[in-house]
Structure formats: C-alpha cells, structure tokens
C-alpha cells in the first residue's frame, strides 16, 4: 500500500517536472516573440548602450542558445538570472521578497476561509431550512459572486476612508487586514456551500442513521462520522484554491498596494524583464502543480477507498 503511494507520488512528481518544462519552453519562446525589449523606454538609449546591455545579459545570442543556457543554469545552479529592470537584483531575490508577503497573505486568507467556511457550512447543514441556514446561504451566494475588486474597493472605502480604522496601504502596520478579508471572503463562502451540501449528503447516509439508532451522542456523530466524510470535496477544492490565492491575488494586491508577487509578475511582463517573467511563471506553475498533487494525496488519506493511479 505504502509502496503504491510512493510510486504514485514519484510518478506524479515526474509528470510535474514535465509540466513545468513545457511551461518554461512555451513561455520562453512566446515571450521572445512579443515585440519590444527590456531596454526600451519613452527616451531611447543610444545604440551603443543598447548593444552593450544586450551583450552583458546574453540577449545578443541566438534564441535557442539563450534557451539552453537558461535551462542549464536552472537545473545545474538553480540560477534564475538577474532582473533586467531592477538592476543589481537577482530574480530569486525579487521573487523571495514578493513571496514573503503573498504567501503570508494567501495562507492566512486560505486558513480563515477554511476555518470559518467549514464551521458555517456544518452549522447551516445541521440547521437545514432554518432562518440561520437561509441567512448563511444568501450571504455566501453574494460573497461567491462578488468579484474581489468590488469587495476590496467597498471595504477600502468603508474601513479606510469613511471610518478611518484601517490603513489603505498594504505596507503599513495592520495593512494586511483588509486584503486578507477581501481575499478570504469568496473562498470562505464557497467552502461554506461545499461543506453544507456535502454534509447534508452524508447526514442522509445509512451509517449515520445506524449510529443514531445505536444511541451514539450527537456530537460524536457530527465530528466523528459526518464532518470527516463531508470534507472530501473541501480538500479537493482547498489545494488549488491555496495556490490560486497565493499566486492570483493580483487584483487585491493592486487595490491595497500590497508588495506581493502578483505585481512583480505583471510589471515584469509590461517591462519585458525576461528572466523575471520566466522566474515568476515557473514559481507560479510549480506551486499550482504541487498543490494539486498534495490535494490528491490528502484525498487518498481521508478516503482510503480511493485508489490512486
């Protein structure tokens, strides 16, 4: 059994490497086919300076040579190269800086979404069709369907401008509170709904009825049997959700001026900062691939009936 799981994980990891390699290759060539270059600005630099810079960063070499050099540096030295725009900084340093904030933001938001979502969802399921259930459902429907830029702007206006309780800038003290709330509301609402429907499903199962008939205490039925089994869909959702929250909080980062990876990603594209584009793409792709893998493995652990192929 364990060796089966191990071989599954190895197989998936190999597949992940192939996926990331495909992402690298496609991004590399597409990126270079887009017009414009990293050393352009409203004011043109002299042709001599342009040539000197291209030579310095190896951009004067044939594209395929650049590609193989890039792959080799990553594999052998884990070297993602220098940023062409933020001169003197390496891609790894810039990404590490951005990830510090993005990861904190994403993980806190995801955990809050999970904690509150599961509690609210279970509560709604247990009080099915009560007024509380209905209120929860209405609110979560609103949160799920409201895009983060509207929610973010709304919270900003209310808590930062009108009430003046919280700063509008993500870099200030307490500045991450509003972005965390904004980011967590939609997945929280989604998890609430997932938990509710799956819990209702589980509560209708025969073994729950049997447990009730045997006189098992209600608390034990809920936490011992129902909750664990109703978390399956939440687990499937949670892994990729975490990856998307960490990597895709761009809009929220923009609204609250949070110094995260999303901004680094977008500015690298508009600025044609080739090594930065590659670096951020690789990190984001790897994160999504790995989170999906973890989520699949957890799935297996929670529900032993599932066979991994």
């Amino acid at each position, binding site marked *: 059994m364990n060796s089966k799981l191990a071989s599954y994980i190895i197989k998936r990891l190999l597949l992940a490497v192939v996926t990331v390699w495909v992402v690298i290759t496609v991004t590399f060539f597409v990126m270079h086919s*887009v*017009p*414009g*270059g990293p*050393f*352009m*600005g409203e*004011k*043109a*630099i*002299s*042709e*001599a*300076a*342009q*040539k*000197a*810079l*291209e*030579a*310095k960063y190896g951009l*004067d070499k044939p594209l395929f040579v650049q590609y193989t050099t890039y792959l080799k540096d990553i594999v052998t030295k884990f070297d993602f190269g220098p940023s062409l*725009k*933020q*001169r*003197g*900084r*390496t891609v790894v*340093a*810039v990404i590490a*800086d*951005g990830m510090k904030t993005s990861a904190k933001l994403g993980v*806190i938001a995801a955990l*809050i979404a999970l904690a*509150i979502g599961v509690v609210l969802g279970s509560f709604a399921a247990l009080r099915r069709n009560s007024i509380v259930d209905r209120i929860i459902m209405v609110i979560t429907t609103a949160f799920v369907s409201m895009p983060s830029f509207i929610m973010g702007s709304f919270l900003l206006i209310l808590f*930062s*401008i009108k009430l*003046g*309780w*919280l*700063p*509008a*800038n*993500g*870099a*200030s*003290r*307490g*500045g991450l*509170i509003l972005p965390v709330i904004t980011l967590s509301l939609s997945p929280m609402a989604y998890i609430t709904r997932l938990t509710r429907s799956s819990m209702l499903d589980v509560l209708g199962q025969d073994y729950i009825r049997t447990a009730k008939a045997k006189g098992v205490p209600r608390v034990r039925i809920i*936490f011992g049997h129902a909750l664990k089994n109703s978390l399956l869909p939440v687990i499937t959702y949670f892994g990729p959700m975490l990856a998307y929250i960490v990597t895709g909080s761009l809009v929220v980062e*923009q*609204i*609250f*001026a949070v*110094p995260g990876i999303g*901004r680094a990603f977008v*500015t690298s594209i*508009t600025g*044609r900062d080739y090594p930065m584009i590659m670096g951020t793409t690789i990190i984001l792709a790897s994160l999504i691939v790995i989170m999906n893998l973890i989520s699949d493995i957890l799935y297996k652990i929670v529900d032993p009936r599932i066979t991994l192929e």
Partner: protein
Amino acid sequence: MRKKIFAVILTAALAVSCLAGCGKSASNDGSSINVCVGSEPDTIDPALNSAVDGATYLVHLFSGLAKWEQKPDGSLEIVADAATELVDGVENADGTVTYTYTLRDGLKWSDGQPVKASDFVFAWNRAASAELGADYGYMFEVVDGYEEISAVDDDGNPINPDAKLNVSAPDDKTIVVTLYNAVSYWNELLAFPTYFPVREDVVSNEGWATEASTYVCNGPYKIDSWDHQSVIRLVKNPDFVDAKDITMSQINFYLSDDQNNMLTNFKNGDWQLIDDIPTNEMASVKAEYPDEYVVAGNLGTYYVCWNVNEQIMPEGSEFAKDEYAKAEVRRAVGLLFDRNYICDEIGQAGQVPASSFVAMGMTEPDGSQFYENAGTNSYTGYYDVSADAYSENFNQAISVLKKYYDYDEATGKFTNFPTLTYIYNTSEGHKAIGEYLQSALAGVGITMNLENQEWATFLNTRKNGDYSIARNGWLADYNDPICFLDMWTTDSGNNDVQFGRGAHKDGAVYDMDLTPYGYDIKVQGTWSETYDVLISTIKRCTDENTRYKLMHVAEDMLMDTGCITPLYYYTDPYMISKNVDGFFANPLGYKYFMFTKIS
C-alpha cells in the same frame, strides 16, 4: 474533542495574528513625512537612474558639485553644493573649455570615509562608459573624451576599454574637467543625478544600490530601510556637512503605482504628498481639496507625431511625392484640433495648449520664455491657440485641404482622404485624447482608426516607424531647448518620425544658409542633411545669443514639416497636505523634502 479544541485555538490564533497591529498606520509627530512619488524604482544607482522619482530619492541621498536651491522669494537657482563655488570655464587654444572645482572641507560618505575628488572622477567615467550602458550615459557627451569612452563595436563590446573622460583629480580636493566647448547648461548638468559621485569599492558590488545595508551615499540622508515594493525610509545623515540646515529627520517614501490607492492614503491623512492623481478624479479632487491640489510646471510637451514616410495623399494624386504639399496637409490637419478642449475637458490638470514643440518653461539667455519667441507670427507660437482663434484655424485648414482632396460642400466633408491609424499606449488618458482627435477628424470626413498597444509593443512600433500617426510626449532632461531638437537628427534613437530614413532619405532638396549667423555654412540637401548640420552647429556654438537664434531656426524647420503636432505642455499635478511647509519642486519634477516642517 481534542480536534475541536485545536480548531478553536487555531481559529483564535489566526484572528489575533491578523488583527495584531491594527490601528492607524502613520502617527505623525512632525519628525517624519510620508510621501509617495512613484512605485518601486528600477534603480537608485545615480549613474543608472533615468526616472524622475528615482531622481527625487537621489537628490536626498547624494550631494553633487551643484544642486537646485529655493531662494526666499520662491524662485529656484543652481548653486554650489559639494564644490566651494561654481567656477567659470577657461577656454583652451583648441576651443575646449576647462573647469577647476575645489571640494568643500568635511565632506563624508555615509560610512564615515572622506569624499575625495577621485570619487567624482571614477563616478563620471563609470556613468559614461559603454560597459555600464546607462540610459543617461549621453549626459556626458559634452565632456571631452566621451566619444572614445562610449564607442562600441557591432557586438556591443567597448572599442576603447581603457578610454577615460578628460577629467582628473590632481589631489583629493580638486577636480579638473574639460568640455569639448562651452556649454550653457553645464551647471545644470552638475546638479543632475548622473553626475553624483559614487565610490569605487562600494559599487564594485553590483547589487550595492538594491539594499539599505550596502547603500553608501554622501548626501543629507541615508537609507534606513528599504522594504521592496513597499517603502524606502530615509533618515538624516548626521555626517552631512550641512546637516544643521536639514529640518526633516525622516522621509518615508512609500512605493505605489496605483493612483487610486495613493489618493485614498492622502485622503485618510496617512500620506502628506502624492505625486499622481487619477485622471477621472481630477475634477472632484480640485473641488474638494482646493488648497492641497497643486499644479506645477513641467518641461514637457504632449504631441502627435506623424510618420514622415506615410502616404497621406489620395490615390492617383499628382502630389503623391510632393514633400512640401504633404507638410502643408499635416500642418492643416493639426489646426483642426481644439487644444483648449483637450486641456480643459479631457486633461483637467492645468495643461496649457501648445503652439510649439519646445516646451513652456524653457528660457532664453535673457530670461524670457523660449516658446513665446517661437515662430514669426503676431500671436505666440506657430499657430494661434487662443480659444477665439479656433474657428478661424478650422476654416483655414479646410481651405488648405481643399487644394489636395475632394470636398463635398453639401456635407462639409472630404471624400478621398486616406484612412489613418492612430496608435497610443494603454491608458485612459491617451485613449480619451485619441477619441477626441478621431471625432474631430471624422467631422470633416477623415477616418482615423484608433489602435491601442501595450507599452513595450507601442515603443517598438513607434521606434521602427510601423505606424501612420502616434501619440508621443517628451520631457526635458535639463533646461535647454536642445533637448527637444537634437532628438530629430537622422541617427537619433528618438527619431520616431523617421526623418532621413526610408523614402525620406531621398526626399526634396532644401537650402540652408547660416551665413547671417556668422557661420560660413551653406548646405543644400535633403531635410535631414540640412537639419543634422544645423544641430551639430548649435552644439558647437559658444555664443549664447546666436545659439538660441539657431535653435529657433531648428524648431522652425521642424514645425514646417508638420510631422509634429503639439497638443499641450505638460504640467505636474500633485497633492500636498496643508500642514507641510518648506517643500519645493524643480522644473524637472524632482521633489525636495529636506527642508520641510510639519505644523
């Protein structure tokens, strides 16, 4: 049950960690100021920086030979900074000019080491070198030796790796620099960040300017901390020679590229100055914060540029190859635009309708405005931009265009004007202006399609001349009209119009006679051949009055082509809290906070 307790504890811990530090972000007791002049800078290495926000950080961190200073009456002047005085040059027999500066006593780097003359020599050679490839390396083009030091071969390698600028440090206090010829804006260059000193052992670490711990400077402030993408905190440098005059102990430069976020931070009182205001909020901000909203001048022009090689004559027209006719058409089309409407209704930030290319704010040797002396008309500039003149301009344009195109009197529209395409880079403001231009031309039957391009693509398209008409803008590097004129020489990297390239290389022949200006120069050649000679003559000219006259001639030539259609002179709108005293900004847009006080 254990799990439940764990879950409760986890939730509580999260909630607490999230709420910790809740409260007002910026308490202000007057010892620090929070401002935002831009997003994370690409670099704050003085040699590599070419951005205005970067220059603002640099003028607080470094002390060059000269600096901008505000006089008690509010006017600005360039004064000596690290140098004891700004000396006059001495002309040598070969026409070059030598300046000898003495450094003040007690100058120190932020790590305590003394500032030496050799640091300037090193910094200048570094900034100008082909090896560094700095955007503003050409700022040293006036210094003897620049041609050698900046030359590279086809592979981008320096041709003369050992070449140096003609600048030396005979001792620790003395800097001797020789220029190719006298340059009227030399003192201004000395105050420019590219000319600030750096120390060799510091910059040998390539990443020195990216972290507070490795950043060594010699100015009024040093970097206390730098949270990338978020804030750069500057604290007063106690070793600075004029530290007693610096009133503000700490400057927090917040880094943001989101105008709405900046405005929110200003409105809730966290930030005392923001350098950018969302265009669509401009009107409401003006009304709501009349005392905080400031519009400063800016040495720049927003304009439309035409690709000189684009065919704008109707099919089969006898004027298809007539350069003069095409120029007349472009000038006429330029008259169809109501610049007052663009400034008042679209820009809404105090922009000034432009009637010339060289921006408002550029001054003549006698102190008068260069743009007011442009052209030879009774009004200011090359066409009349006063509000009453618009209908006359319009009629004049129609009568000119009638000479070349079929006009339907009944509808008041031209029927065979080729379709034009206007490209602009993604921005609400550029789009709004593009739409206005489109509608103005549609009114007379000229179809102009709009094409929006992402920034880097746009620059590439425009530079390569793959367009018919494009949005353009130019901000001066220093207060001298030559900034606006030398960009149109054939080989210039900013020659977006494509003068002297493609078909224009074999264009019409012009006569240029510079004998009235005391030069034995008569040139007969294409537009670019004559223009290139004129610009190089201006660059070598040492007589101020003649030089400015020649620059007017150059602008006349440029405007005659009709390829440049100026729309407005840029302004620099920003918001500053009423509590802040002692703040000033220079015409290049650098903001100075060292002498501020918060009441």
